[in-house]
C-alpha cells in the first residue's frame, strides 16, 4: 500500500503522543494525583492509532479502554484528555466520567462503556443506519481478546454478517485479560477463528506494526464502503504493563515481556522510517519535541482547569427532562 510521507509521519506523531500522554498519566497516578483507575495501551499504541487513522472524518468508532490513540487521532485534544483524568470541568466528559470512559459524538467517538464488547453491537447499529440511509460511511469497533468471549461480541458479528453492514471489528489480542492468559480464555488458536463461525472474512496482523494495522484497516474499510460487509481484524500484541497501573502483573513471565520489548511499536516505526529514508533523525526529533511540548501544555491546562460543582452532578441525566 502506498502511504504518503505526511501520513507516515502523522502515524509516528500519534504513536508518540499516545505513549507520552499515557506515561504522564502513569506518573500522575503514582503520585496519587489521578484517582480511580489508570489503564494504558503501552506497547499496543499501533492498533488504535492505525485503525483510527485509516478512517475518514465522517466515519465513527466504538472504542474500548486501550484505544487512547484512536481518541487522539479523531481529534480529542491532549488538553481534554488530561483534564478528564483529573476529573476537571474541561475534561472530555466534564468530570462525569474519568480516564478512558469517554466519547464525543461530534468527533464520531462513541463513549466506552466498561462492559467489554458492549460497543460491538452499538457499532453494528451505527453501520446499519449508514446502510439504511445509503451513506458511504463505516463504523469501527475494538475490544480485547477477553471481550470476545462475551455474548455481545458473538451477537454483533452474527448480525453484522447477516445484514452485511459496513462495520470493521478489531481485536487487540494482547494475550492477557487481566490475569487470564489466552489459553484459558478460549480454545481456538486465534481469535480470528471466531469470525469464521459468522462467515466474516478475517485477517491476523502484527499489532506492533502501525503500517500493517493501517493497511489492513484501510482495505477492510474499502470493502465495507463497497457494500461487501464486515471484516474482522485480529491484532497480535502484548500488554507490557499490568492490567492497570495498580497491578504488578507477576503472572506474566519475564521472558515474554523481554521478547516483546524488542518489538516495541514506536521503535519499529522509527526503524522503518529511518531505514527507508522516509524521515531523518532530525525530523523525528522534531516530532518528539512537539509531543513533549503538547503534553506539558496539556498537563498545565488540566491542572489549572476548575473542578465541577458538586450539585451539577444532577445535570444531564436526560436529554429532555420531563
Amino acid at each position, binding site marked *: 500500500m502506498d502511504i504518503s510521507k505526511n501520513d507516515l509521519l502523522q502515524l509516528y506523531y500519534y504513536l508518540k503522543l499516545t505513549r507520552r500522554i499515557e506515561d504522564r498519566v502513569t506518573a500522575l497516578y503514582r503520585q496519587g494525583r489521578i484517582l480511580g483507575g489508570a489503564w494504558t495501551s503501552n506497547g499496543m499504541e499501533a492498533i488504535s492509532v492505525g485503525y483510527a487513522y485509516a478512517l475518514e472524518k465522517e466515519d465513527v468508532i466504538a472504542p474500548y479502554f486501550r484505544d487512547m490513540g484512536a481518541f487522539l487521532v479523531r481529534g480529542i485534544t491532549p488538553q481534554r484528555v488530561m483534564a478528564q483524568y483529573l476529573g476537571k470541568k474541561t475534561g472530555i466528559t466534564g468530570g*462525569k466520567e474519568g480516564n478512558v470512559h469517554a466519547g464525543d459524538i461530534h468527533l464520531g467517538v462513541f463513549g466506552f462503556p466498561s462492559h467489554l464488547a*458492549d460497543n460491538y453491537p*452499538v457499532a*453494528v447499529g451505527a453501520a446499519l443506519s449508514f446502510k439504511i440511509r445509503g451513506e458511504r460511511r463505516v463504523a469501527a469497533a475494538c475490544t480485547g481478546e477477553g471481550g470476545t468471549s462475551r455474548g455481545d461480541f458473538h*451477537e454483533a458479528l452474527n448480525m453484522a454478517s447477516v445484514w452485511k453492514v459496513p462495520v470493521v471489528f478489531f481485536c487487540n489480542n494482547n494475550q492477557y485479560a487481566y490475569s487470564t492468559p489466552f489459553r484459558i480464555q478460549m480454545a481456538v488458536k486465534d481469535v480470528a477463528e471466531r469470525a469464521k463461525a459468522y462467515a466474516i472474512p478475517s485477517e491476523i496482523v502484527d499489532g506492533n506494526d502501525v503500517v500493517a494495522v493501517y493497511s489492513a484497516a484501510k482495505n477492510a474499510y474499502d470493502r465495507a464502503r463497497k457494500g461487501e460487509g464486515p471484516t474482522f481484524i485480529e491484532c497480535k500484541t502484548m500488554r507490557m504493563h499490568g492490567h492497570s497501573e495498580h497491578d504488578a502483573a507477576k503472572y506474566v513471565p519475564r521472558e515474554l515481556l523481554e521478547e516483546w520489548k524488542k518489538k516495541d511499536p514506536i521503535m519499529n516505526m522509527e526503524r522503518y522510517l529511518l531505514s527507508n529514508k522516509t524521515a531523518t533523525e532530525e525530523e523525528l526529533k522534531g516530532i518528539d519535541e512537539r509531543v513533549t511540548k503538547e503534553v506539558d501544555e496539556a498537563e498545565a491546562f488540566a491542572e489549572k482547569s476548575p473542578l465541577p460543582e458538586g450539585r451539577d452532578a444532577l445535570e444531564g*441525566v436526560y436529554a429532555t427532562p*420531563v
Partner: protein
Amino acid sequence: MAEVTYLEAIKQALDEEMTRDNNVFILGEDVGYYGGAFRVTEGFYEKYGQWRVLDTPLSESGFTGAAIGAALMGMRPVVEMQFADFISCAFDQIVSVAAKNNYRWGGKTPMVIRAPFGGFVHGGAFHSACPETWFFNVPGLKMVAPSDPYDAKGLLKAAIRDDDPVIYFEHKFLYRRIKGEVPEGDYLVPLGKAKVVREGKDISVITYSAMVHTALEAAQALEGEGISLEIVDLRTLLPLDKEGIYASVRKTNRVIILYETPRTGGVGAEVAALISEEMFGHLDGPILRVSAPDTPVPYSPPFEEFYLPKAEDVIKAARKLAAY
C-alpha cells in the same frame, strides 16, 4: 372519532410515525415478513420494506445495542421485544449503555423499546412477567405503560419523538380486549403526566396499565357501599408524576397502590415512600398495597387466578381503609 382496539392504536402510532419521519424504523424478532408475534406490525413489511421493519437474529442484547448505535447516528429505532420477559437478555445494553449515554458523555440516545408484558394469558413464568421494576431505579431511562387506546397511541408517538430511551410497556391482555375512542390524525400524550381516569372522594387508587381496569371494576362495585374511589393512572412510571399523585392524595387522604408485579420493591414502594415523605399530614390511614405475591408468575389457572390482583382484593383493601 373512531373506536379502535389497544393493539390497533399502537399500530396506528407506529405507522404514522414511520410515515412522518424516515428515521423511524422497527427492529426485532419476526416483526418483518411475519408481522410480529402479536401482529402489531402486520402489513408494515409490504409498506416500508425490509430495512425499516427489520427481522433480527434471536439476539435481544445484540439488536438492542444495534438500536443504540442507530440512535446515536440520528435514527429513531423502535425495538420490539417479542415478550417483555426477554428484555432480561438486553438488560446490560439498556442500563449500562442506553440509560447512561447522555449523562456520561452527552451521547443522545432516542429510542423506544416496546415490551409486551403482563399476565392473564396463561403464559407461565416466562411469558407473563411485568419487568418494569427491574428498571425502576435506572436514572436516564423513561418508562410508560398505557391503559387505554387513546394513551397507547399518544404515548407511543411521544416516546418515539422523545430524545431519551423509553421503555414502552404494552399489556398483552389489553391488546384486543380494550376498545376506545382515538382521534384521527396527530396527537401526543405527554410523558411524565398521570391522569385521573375516575373522579372520587374517599380513596385514591394509584395504578397503571391493565390494573386500571381492575380498579375500575372495584370502584363500580363499591359505589353501592358508598365508598367512592378515585383512580389515578400513572401512565408514565419513570419519572413519576409526583404532583399528579399528590393532588389526588390531598383530595382523598387515603391511598391504595395497585400493581401487577411482585409486592417487594415494586412501584408501590416508591409511591408510598413519596407520599409518606411529602404528604404525611394529609393521610387519614396507612398506605395499602394490592399487588401480586412474591413468586414467579405461575401457570395453572387456579394458580394464576390466585396470583393476579383482583377487584375483590381492591375492594377488601378499600373497606379496611374506609374505616379510618
